[in-house]
């Protein structure tokens, strides 16, 4: 493995790890959400009701998409750098 290939793998792993960590910190939801339900109080009736609030929640689906794209791009770059490495080898 040449330097560029190693760099590609490390960067790829960093991106995938970051995606997984962000997913876990965000609550480990299966699906990415753009709105969440919050509870509000109805002072007149003394009851609670729910309201939608715009909030982005990172889900496992987004983590898998990012990881998949990273693996694909890393794989292509790995192959390109392997070829370049072979071409640049002194005879």
């Amino acid at each position, binding site marked *: 493995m040449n330097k560029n290939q190693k760099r590609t793998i490390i960067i790829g792993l960093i991106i995938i790890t970051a995606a997984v960590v962000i997913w876990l910190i965000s609550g480990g939801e*299966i*699906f*990415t*959400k*753009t*709105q*969440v*339900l919050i509870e509000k109080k*109805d002072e*007149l*009736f003394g*009851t609670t*009701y*729910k*309201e*939608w609030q715009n909030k982005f929640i990172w889900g496992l689906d987004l983590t898998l998409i990012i990881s998949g794209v990273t693996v694909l791009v890393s794989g292509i770059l790995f192959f390109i750098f392997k070829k370049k490495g072979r071409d640049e080898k002194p005879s």
Partner: protein
Amino acid sequence: MKNLVKVTFIVLFFTTLGHAQGFDVKATGVQTFSFADQSSRNQAAFHSTTPFEEINGLTTQIEGKVTFDVIDFANTLKGQFTIPVASLKTGIEKMEKDLRSSSWLDAEKYPTITFKITKATNVQKISPNKLSADVIGDFTLHGVTKEITTKDTVTYLDENEMTRARMPGDLLGILSSFDIQLSDFNVEHLLLGKRVSNDIQIKVNLVGTNKF
């Protein structure tokens, strides 16, 4: 004298019984409340839980009317509510699209969910303006109608300065909860019981006015 006491007692007993079945409020006679809410305050929340996934959803597009005699809620309650299937939201775009599709609730073929009240039973007075009741009615979902029983708390607020800030007229607050089984309404899917529970818990929170 003994007979007079007996008759008085019987009259008082039935009067009390009658009042226990209704509200002690300023309004009298038959009242009709409309629940056409423009501020998204009226809502029905649904909940499904499986080991794999928890789904919480909400619709704020509920319309309907109820009519009852203020002092005889139990025997005079009638009404109907409708919800557009397309208004059900879960916060997850793909899930909402699936929910409307022909694989699940088929919004195109069965665009509305309806609940038609037929009677109220087990009416208990919690306070002069608050009753609890089991409300029985016909629930229609996915083209299938089934009789269900909902557990309700109904609060009557006479019009005052505070209620006028919300809406004109007397206000009626309804809190209702019930469960349904999707399979009872011909909803069939491979994921039913796995990602989506067959048992759906529904909670309804409505405020209506008699000035509309």
